[in-house]
Structure formats: C-alpha cells, structure tokens
C-alpha cells in the first residue's frame, strides 16, 4: 500500500517538474512571442487568464494531495472518519461564487478584446490600413493588392507599423489564414468574405499557413510573410509592378486546379474578373475543375517543404 503512495507522489512530482521545464521555454513559443499589436493583445489575454487558471490548478492540486495523503486507509491512521458527512452550505456557496467571479473576470477582457479585434489596430490609426485580398484555392494562396494592382502566390509582403486589412475568401474548400506571430486566424470561405486585421511591428520573415484541414495538400499550404519597412515595401511593390508578368484569366484558371504550385508574382489581380467572396464567384473553381478534384497528388513528406528560398520569392 505504501508502495503505491510513493508511486503517486512520484507521479505528481514528475508532472510538476515537467510543467516547470516546459513553462521556462514558453517565451520562445510563437504565440507568446508576438510581433505585432494583434498578437500582443491575444498574448496578454492568454497570460492574464493563465494567472487565474494556474491559481485554480494550484488550489485543486493542493486539496487533492492533502485529501489523498491524509485520508488513505492504512493501519495506525489517526485522521478522523465521518462516513455520513455530506454537505456544508457555507463552503458550497463559497466554491460556487469563486468560479463565478473567475469567469466574470475572464469574460470582461475577452469581450473588449473581441470588439477591438474587429477594428484596425489602434497603434497605426493615423494611417489607412493596407487592403489585401487573401484567397485560397486547393492548396495555394493568392494575395491580391487591389490598390497596388499586383498579386502574389504563396508569399506575402507587408509594410511594418501599418494595419493590414485582409479580405478573406476561398475559391473552393474552407481554409483559415493564420500567421501566429502576427495574430489569430479567421476562416476563408467561398461565397463570403471575412475581414481580419493584423499588423507587424518588427521586420522579419514569419510563417503563415492555412490552418483548417482541406484535403491532401493541406500541410503544404503555407506561405512566408515578409514584413519590411514601408520604403522597402514600396520598392518591392514597384519592382513587382514593373517586372512581373500580367495575370491573365487563362493563367489564373489553370492555377486554380487543385495542386501545389511554387511562389509567383503578377502585375495585375484576379479581382478584375472574379471575386470569390461573392455569391457569383462561389462555384467559379469547381465549374472549371470538377474532375481534377478526383485526382490524387500521392503527396509524400519531403516534397515541397518550402516554396523556394526566401530571398527569391516570386521569381519562378
């Protein structure tokens, strides 16, 4: 009997040590190491909730260890035994009210953050956000910059310190745009449009991806986000406008075919003839590629891990 108790406490110690070890590495985790105001507000909310919730864990674990250690049935046990004890109004009211208070304390910042996230980030309010249409088709990303008249495939350039207003939609399956370093995700759906505000405060290359499962090429539907100073961004826009080929409808239609493609850049956007965020653009892709969806990629690990070296994106 004593043998198992030793096991039990050993197990608990093991779990606690594991927790501490893992928590110490937390600051390096992408979500907890934000690179922009949106991700930062979400990180703050997560850490705020953790304070309360780790408190709950501490209370429950301590009570649990106390009960199990003290009230084990063993020879020479001195602890009291009251088989008919089955209620205590005061303590029951206390442990109902405390969770209610915790939930209330968590609800208020959750709701304010939710409303904040529907607006462009405040830190760059003096500037209009940059509009980018992010459209997915199995298993690739199209980023259209309507004001700049350019479009990229599978990579994204954004200026720092300026809000980005993503218009999310999909040409076929449901997907989600997620750049963990910059903030949380929203769904891309055919026939409707979601708005997602993100912003980068630091330059750098961040990982972005589709996070919603959509079939065989799902794991490879990733892209790199190049956050750069607004002058560097302007240079990139201009060089793309000047050197990239025009996107023709024929080319676009062939790109919609469900398969993996490399990074590309164009000096015009597909929004000229179709917007998948409207009902009219909802069945555009499946009308054209109905049979292609039946074909399998036979996709193995190791193919297409990256869309080319990060410096040379857009140069097919």
């Amino acid at each position: 009997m004593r043998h198992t108790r030793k096991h039990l406490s050993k197990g608990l110690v093991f779990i606690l040590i594991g927790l501490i070890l893992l928590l110490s590495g937390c600051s390096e985790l992408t979500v907890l190491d934000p690179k922009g105001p949106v991700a930062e507000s979400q990180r703050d909310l997560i850490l705020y909730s953790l304070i309360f919730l780790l408190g709950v864990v501490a209370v429950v674990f301590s009570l649990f260890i106390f009960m199990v250690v003290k009230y084990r049935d063993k020879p020479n046990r001195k602890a009291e035994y009251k088989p008919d004890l089955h209620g205590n109004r005061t303590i029951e009211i206390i442990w109902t009210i405390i969770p209610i208070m915790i939930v209330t304390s968590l609800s208020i910042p959750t709701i304010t953050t939710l409303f904040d996230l529907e607006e462009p980030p405040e830190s760059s309010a003096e500037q209009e956000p940059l509009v980018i249409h992010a459209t997915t088709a199995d298993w690739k990303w199209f980023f259209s910059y309507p004001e700049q008249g350019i479009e990229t495939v599978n990579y994204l350039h954004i200026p720092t310190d300026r809000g980005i207003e993503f218009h999310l939609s999909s040409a076929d399956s449901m997907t989600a745009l997620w750049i963990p370093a910059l903030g949380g995700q929203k769904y891309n759906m055919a026939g409707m449009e979601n708005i997602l505000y993100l912003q980068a405060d630091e330059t750098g290359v961040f990982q972005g991806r589709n996070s919603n499962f959509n079939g065989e090429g799902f794991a490879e539907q990733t892209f790199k986000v190049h956050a750069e100073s607004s002058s560097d961004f302007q240079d990139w826009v201009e060089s793309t406008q000047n050197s990239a080929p025009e996107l023709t409808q024929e080319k676009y239609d062939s790109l919609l075919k469900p398969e993996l493609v490399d990074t590309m850049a164009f000096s015009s956007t597909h929004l000229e003839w179709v917007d998948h965020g409207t009902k009219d653009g909802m069945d555009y892709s499946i009308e054209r590629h109905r049979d292609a969806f039946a074909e399998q990629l036979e996709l193995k690990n190791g193919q297409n891990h990256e869309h080319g070296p990060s410096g040379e994106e857009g140069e097919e």
Partner: protein
Amino acid sequence: MGLDEFFVTGEPLIYAGMVAITLVSGAIIFLLTYFKKWKWLWREWLTTVDHKRIGIMYILSALAMLFRAGSDALMMRTQLAFPDMNFLNAQHYNEIFTTHGTIMIFFMAMPFLIGLMNIVVPQQIGARDFAFPYLNALSFWSFFFGAMLFNVSFVIGGAPDAGWTSYTPLAGDIMSQGPGQNFYLLALQLSGIGTLATGINLMVTILKMRAPGMTLFKMPIFTWSTFITMFIIVFAFPILTIALALMTIDRIFGSHFFTLAGEGLPMMWANLFWMWGHPEVYIVILPAFGIFSEVIATFARKRLFGYTVMVWSIILIAGLSFLVWVHHFFTMGAGAFVNSIFSVTTMAIAIPTGVKIFNWLATLYKSRIRTTTAMMWALAFIPSFTIGGITGVMLGMAAADYQFHNSYFLIAHFHYVLIAGTVFGCFAGLVYWYPKMFGHKLNERIGKWAFWLFVIGFHICFLPQYFLGLDGMPRRVFHIVPEWFNLNVISTIGAFGMGLGFAVFVYNIYYSYRYSEREQTGDPWDGRTLEWATPTPVPEYNFAVVPHVKEHDAYWDMKQKGETIYDESKVEPIHMPNSTGQPFIMSAIMFFASFALVFEWIWLAVAGLVTILVTMGIRSFDYDEGRHIDVEEIKQTERSARGL
C-alpha cells in the same frame, strides 16, 4: 466497377490489415466450429434480450474499437515523431485521423458507456430489465453493424478522409469523390438509430421501472447522469440524423444543401454538426462523472458530498451544452457580439463543473480511501481533468481562441477532457463493475501496472501538445517541421506508453479469467447501491424479490440495518421476455442496404429498404408475450447463487 476499385489496393499497411482480418476471422470461425459453439453463440448471445449480456457485447465491441482507433493513433504519432518521417503519405494520414476520431467518439466512447449503463442501470434501480428489451437488442445490433460498416471502408472502397467533423464543401461529392465519405454518413446513420432508441429506452426505464420507494432524488448518481444523458441524446441526435441525411442526399442524389454550386450553404453543415456535436461531448462525459461519483463514494466509504448539488450541476451542464456550439467556429466571422455571447456561455460551464470537482474533493474529506485500481482511475481523473477543464476555459475566450483554434493546443485540450474524463471513467467503471459482470475481480497488481503506464503515458503524450499549439503547430498536418521535433518525439513516446498500458489492461482480462479468485458474494467492494445486492452470477431476472428503497445508497442502508433484499417467502413467478433473432436479422439487412447505398447501387438499396419494412411489419404482428419463471426455479437459482 472492377475488383481493383472495390478493394483498396497499393498500400502495404492495408494489405497487412487484410491479411490480419482474414486470419482473425478464419480463426474465429475455426474455433466456433471446432468447439461446436455456433448454436451457443446464436442462442446465448446473438438472440439475447438480456440487458447484462447486451451490455457485455457493447463493452467487448468498444474495446475492439479502442484497439482499432488506438492503433490509428499510434500510426499517426509514429509519422509525427520525426520531421522527415515517411511512414504515412498525406492521403493515408488523412484517412487515419478521420477514422481515429470517428471511431473513438461513435464506436468506442458511446458504446462503452452505454454498455456500462446497460449492465448497471437496471440493477441500480431495482429493475429486471429495460423497459423495451427487444428495442435494446435492436439498438445494440444497429450500433454493431454500423461499426462494422465503418470499419469495412478500410479494405473495401476506401476510408473517409475529410476529418471526423466532415466539413462541407470538403466532404461533398466534388472534393471527396468515391465511396469513402458515404461510409461515414451511412455508418453513423445506422448506429445513430441505435443510440436514439437507447435514449428513449433508458429514459422510460428510469422513469417507470424504479423500485418502490426510490424517488428521483434517491436515485444513485450514475443513474441520474444516465437519465440526463438520455435527454441530451433525444434532443441532440435528431439534428445529426437530419444533417447526415441531407449530406447523403447531396452526395448520392445531387441536391445542393451544403454544396458550393446551386446556392448551397456549406457552412450550415458546421452549424448543424456542432449543434449535435457539442451536446455529444456531454453525452460522453456526464456518464463518466456518474461513474466517478459512484467509485469515489464506494472506495472513500463515505456518502457522496453534495448529492443534490451534483444532480443539479449535471442538469445545468446538460442545459448549457445546447447553448455553446458556436465556440467550435469562433473564427468563422460571426462578429464580436455573437462570439461574446457564446464565449460567456462556454465559460459558464466551468462553474457547475468546478462545483463538481470540489464536491468530489469534499467527498474525500474525512473519508477512508481504499486505493483499489478502480479508485486510482477515479482519483487520477481529478487533477488530469482539471488541466483539461482550465484549458477549455482558455479556448472559450473567443479572442484568444483565434490563436488556439485548429492548433495542437485544442488537440491537447480535448484529449485531456476526453481521455481523463471518458476513458478513465470507462476503465474505472469496467474495473469496478467487472465482478458483477464476470463473477471475478480483475487482478489488482496487473491493473495498477496498466493504470500507471496509461496515466503517465497520457500526460507525456498530451502535455507537450499544448506547447506545440502555442508554437503554431496546426492539427491534421501529416509532417512536422524541425522546430517542433523535441516536443513531438516526447509526445510519441507517451502515446506508446498508453498503448502499452492498454495492452496490459487487456492481458489482465485474460489473466484474471484464468487465475482470479471466483466471487462468493455479490458484493466484493462493500458497495452502496442496489446493484451490489444481487448475487453473482446475476440471475437473468436480477432481483428475485423487488427491493424497497428507503434511503440514499439503498444497499448501504440495508446493510447497516442488517436487512437483506432476498426473502424466500416473497418469491413470485417472474415475467421475462423471450430471446429473439429478429433484431440481429433486421440490423444485418440494414447493414446490406446501407452498404449498397454506399456504392450507390440504388436498386439493391431499395430492395434492402423494402425488406426492412417487411421485417418491421412482421414485428408488429408479433404476439410473443414472453414467459414466466416459476417460483421453484427462482428459489433454486437463488440458493445456488447465494450459497444458502
């Protein structure tokens, strides 16, 4: 369609599976023939309407499914252990996580719990069987054939690959061509019939067949949790039935409920799925709460703390479970206001759940804890489930959920609640009620080995996944990148620990069957509720004399007062239902009709449907009134069982 299209080809793992299936079925057929057991199988099991035998069949099937879906899990964890692993390709990985999730929820968790309810609930309320024993058999066989239909997909036609949530348009006829997704739809439809019927059956049983004196608020807590669960089933499952039917019509007959073409509403599937799917979570967790309450009270030798509050918190959780489904798609862009409301309702569930946790802890206060294996599972539940619960609150905070959604943080959370809640609960219940089912205990020493391997493996497997999620690892990717390597390899080691724990658990069933001491009394744990008042082996009629209930923990009360429920002078003839092969045959026909529909062989399916209607017609002209067991036979059975 050629044979090469009919059977799945080209995958060595599946060929191995085919060989294994052929060998195992061959061995079973050989053993049944060699020992001349075919008649025994038909008479004692396939045609039985006895709730205890049906319960055992449920649990055996659930264990087999746990093995199947657990193997899926180990294959996934193997593939994710190293960044350059090429054990599974993308397509195969997608099929495996789809079947893993679907089987674990529909064909493992639910039948395991329903199996325990089958065995325990009538005995806890002092009843002799279900209200509708024939319907109970039909429920089991439709579940069983549904599970078979789903499993067949692995070698015939191809497994579904759109995830257990099967979101449209991905799961629609264009992006998931072929029979795979049809298997999902029809297998769930078929087994759903059984679940819905069980819902009504147990509800009526609990309302109408309780022993005299057992008012609702004197019912054992497991019966209460079952009762509430059945309400959730009856209100939630019709939504799934309709959603599955609409998608089936979309796929097979070309309608446009959830399609991209023809003004379909693909997102409506997610809505309908989770309007069922969230209550479903509570369908598999509330009975586990009931099991833990029983086990903790018994082995703490103490009355359950806050019984009434426990009941009301179950009712509250059940009510709230219908008001939170949108939290599965906060990221769909419903807007801040809608998300705020569902965020608050979601977090509100933590309140009654927290109260329950404190009630369990208070039950341990001033108690006398016997650390049997069943109790260990129940004790391990408390801290483990707390971690799952608080991370659930984190996921409920919609603004933060934008970062957690679709990530391994979510995966870690729901495995923490479903394994620490449902699976620990199933194991606790099985170990606890095992002597009632089979007349001997499971070996405690081996049981504790299984326990420690499984529980430690569980934490090693899933704790790192929270951190992987925070590092941006999405669910359902078939390979990892080097940054996620360390935590993934730890997680995989834990998964194999759990696998080993399960293997030891199953070995214990064999070992205990061979070597465990046979039970002499019907009350090996010094139990508190009425199921321990019946002798072991339990006679088919359960109670020779209907017990009269005066207090909570009716049997404990009787033992304190030195009363017994068996009084030979009060024995009267007992009316019992006859065995029947109809539920088995009916469900087998439904299986073939569904199979035909999977392959869109419409005329064969129609023929099957007509045959089902004919068998239902035959059933409605069935005037079998059952039989009576006479007093002498009862006395004899009781004397030998009670060693009088």
